[in-house]
């Protein structure tokens, strides 16, 4: 199958998806509309920045740590300017100017600001970026970019040396709340065959407007994403991976109010995947859409640079809306997410676009419909990893039935050539996974993936049959929805509740107070350095370039 380019993980012999006869004009139309929608949003928000983006600049400058009461220094520095109304020119200019005048390095200056020894407001009045200040900012930005690229090359070297799992990559979650327990659970999962470990975040973290500091042992429904926790898990997975002779990927969440900041931390700690959706926070966490749409762009540019895979969250649409009625919203959203991601420099092999198996399993032909949906997504995004999500809505607490549903899910995943399979747990809807839930899930996946590995390239879809008709129908509906959203704009479309049956207003939700209009003197050397690095890597689309 030529469309399954094995750029992110090897594909076994015969692995692929049965051909599907889609209307190529509809496919082209859908993609062009999605690009149009993404471009309109980008243009509208180009003049804005956010608190999270400014904190990310400081993170890339090397500022880390927190005050004694736990407030990160990055927050303290940015707020020192923002509360005085002096952030519209960006944090970089006053910060680098203060560095030039005090002779302090970035970390020492952030500490001095936090200790009230340096007043940044005094450095915000000069609107010019003098060459000396520019040189400091550019050097810091380039050093930050170099650190990220070094981690990227480290990953490439480790995968080259150790090898890695084959598609579909087996992805499992750990979520004990205590990073030390998570490490044990993750190491066991790797030994049982897991290729990707995702550390679920503590519930509520997405709404924190700061990233907690240090190693954490308490969390609810998950473990806090902190740079120290990232580093601990990275070391553990590298150790077990070296022993097993298989690179184990680490996944976390660049989402919520700290989207770009966590992307930067993940890039610096060599995470390999990030949950990162342009729309999820708006819909499911009621985060302001201007905030998230600005933040997602910066977070994705950093992820593009880091060479990591982003996972989008369209699977969630089907937990609130009906999985059959709303199938086209998943397709429309993945196309928009793809267009926004490509604008930010993410490449095909970095697009873990999300979709899910959420149809009521007792519905007649449920499996046929699921195969149609999964095959449609597979054919719309050739070469992209694709992240396929397991049943959650119709998991009942009957662990035996749940295990069967997950086995069917594994079958659809391998049959349709999905790149990343988030393995379902038989205890879904009961509790965060126990150590043996993960083993049972991995055993099931190995059994099904092994047995059905070549079916996708052997079986054929009946021309004019139910399956083909369903896939074509969903695509047609997606094009209708995209036409409407292209007419009215993405933000208006979200306000009308097109996705997940949830309506959000452009000025509602959390985090709008952290969005500001950049003034004429705005300067962000990290943006320039990232752009230059992405251009050097050939990852930025040329203006007006027709994308695949």
């Amino acid at each position, binding site marked *: 199958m030529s469309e399954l380019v094995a750029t992110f993980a090897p594909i076994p012999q015969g692995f692929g998806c049965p051909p599907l006869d889609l209307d190529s004009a509809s496919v082209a139309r859908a993609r062009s509309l999605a690009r149009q929608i993404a471009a309109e949003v980008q243009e509208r928000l180009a003049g804005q920045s956010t608190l999270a983006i400014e904190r990310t600049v400081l993170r890339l400058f090397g500022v880390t740590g927190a005050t004694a009461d736990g407030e990160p220094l990055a927050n303290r520095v940015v707020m020192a300017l923002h509360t005085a109304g002096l952030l519209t020119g960006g944090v970089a200019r006053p910060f680098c100017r203060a560095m030039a005048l005090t002779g302090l390095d970035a970390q020492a200056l952030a500490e001095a600001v936090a200790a009230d020894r340096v007043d940044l407001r005094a450095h915000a009045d000069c609107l010019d970026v003098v060459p000396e200040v520019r040189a400091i900012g550019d050097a810091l930005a380039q050093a930050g970019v170099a650190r990220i690229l070094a981690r990227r090359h480290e990953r490439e070297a480790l995968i080259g040396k150790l090898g890695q799992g084959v598609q579909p990559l087996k992805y499992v979650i750990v979520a004990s709340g205590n990073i030390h327990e998570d490490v044990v659970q993750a190491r066991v999962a790797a030994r049982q065959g897991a290729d990707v470990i995702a550390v679920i975040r*503590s519930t509520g973290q997405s709404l924190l407007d700061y990233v907690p500091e240090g190693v954490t042992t308490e969390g609810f429904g998950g473990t806090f994403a902190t740079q120290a926790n990232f580093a601990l898990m990275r070391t553990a997975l590298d150790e077990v991976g070296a022993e097993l002779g298989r690179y184990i990927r680490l996944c976390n969440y660049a989402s919520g109010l700290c989207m770009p900041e966590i992307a930067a931390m993940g890039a610096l700690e060599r995470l390999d995947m990030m949950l990162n959706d342009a729309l999820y926070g708006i819909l499911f966490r009621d985060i302001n859409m201007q905030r998230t749409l600005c933040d997602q762009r910066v977070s994705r540019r950093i992820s593009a640079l880091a060479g990591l895979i982003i996972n989008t969250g369209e699977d969630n649409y089907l937990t609130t*809306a009906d999985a059959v009625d709303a199938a086209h919203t998943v397709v429309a959203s993945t196309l928009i997410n793809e267009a926004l991601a490509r604008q930010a420099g993410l490449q095909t092999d970095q697009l873990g676009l999300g979709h899910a198996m959420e149809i009521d399993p007792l519905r007649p032909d449920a499996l046929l419909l699921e195969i149609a949906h999964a095959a449609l997504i597979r054919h719309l995004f050739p070469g992209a990893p694709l992240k396929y999500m397991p049943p959650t809505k119709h998991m009942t607490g009957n662990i035996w039935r749940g295990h069967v549903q997950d086995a069917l899910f594994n079958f659809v995943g391998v049959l349709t050539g999905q790149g990343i399979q988030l393995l379902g747990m038989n205890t879904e809807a009961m509790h965060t996974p126990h*150590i043996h839930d993960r083993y049972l899930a991995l055993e099931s996946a190995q059994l099904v993936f092994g047995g059905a590995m070549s079916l996708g390239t052997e079986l054929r879809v009946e021309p004019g049959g139910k399956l083909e008709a369903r896939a074509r129908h969903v695509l047609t509906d997606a094009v209708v929805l995209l036409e409407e959203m292209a007419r009215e704009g993405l933000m208006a479309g979200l306000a009308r509740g097109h996705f997940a049956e949830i309506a959000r207003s452009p000025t509602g939700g959390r985090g709008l107070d952290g969005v500001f209009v950049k003034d004429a003197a705005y300067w962000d050397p990290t943006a320039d350095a990232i752009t230059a690095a992405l251009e050097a890597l050939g990852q930025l689309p040329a203006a007006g370039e027709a994308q695949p």
Partner: protein
Amino acid sequence: MSAIDPKHVRAYGDTLNDGQIMLSFSLPVPFGEEAKEAARQLCRQMGLEAPQVYHAHDLGEGFTYLVVYARSPHTVDTTQLRVTKMATAQLGKDAIEALAAQKFTRRLRVLGACTGDDAHTVGIDAILNVKGYNGDKGLEAYHCLSVKNLGAQVTNERLLQEARAFQADVILVSQIVTQKDCHRSNLAALIDLAEADGVRQDVLFICGGPRLSHQVALELGFDAGFGAGTLPSQVAGFLVQQLPPR
């Protein structure tokens, strides 16, 4: 088959009173005969007899997964069971609407939210959204109810503020995340706050979630609780029957 003695009921496998029980668990003991023996001893300490380890799997890192069958000699007197059940009858949507039309001169105002840090709205949405759950229409589809869904991560303080503004007759609280029993403390705190505000008696407080039951809800000071698999009509039926005429 011999007659079942309701005063001495044992677990049932394939023969009355065989007491057959299955267990599966992991031990932080390296895979091997010691792990199996540890599992058997643990089962005996649970009061089980003749434990058989049918499956043991090496999880690595010093852990072993086990599947054990054993015989439980213990009995339960089912004639002496006391459980807390909802006293109201289960009605369909039409019967609920008809009853409401008789009892109330206005629509009942229902306010729903996931409180605390909980971001999982699947449960509250299934109960409130028009679409409902498993073919059973949600509360928004009821003519007799006026529904407002505050969504996820609502603080108890804000919930009560909104309830005053909305003049809610009923508050529905969903709690899915239960790690370290945070749902219990959070729910109990809501009732404490409502009592401190003097609004506890004015509003029907109902909670729901996979780890909640009517009994737990009563213990926490709620008027009712609904567990996994609850249909919207069960909730609607309860509140229409429970609320006095207004």
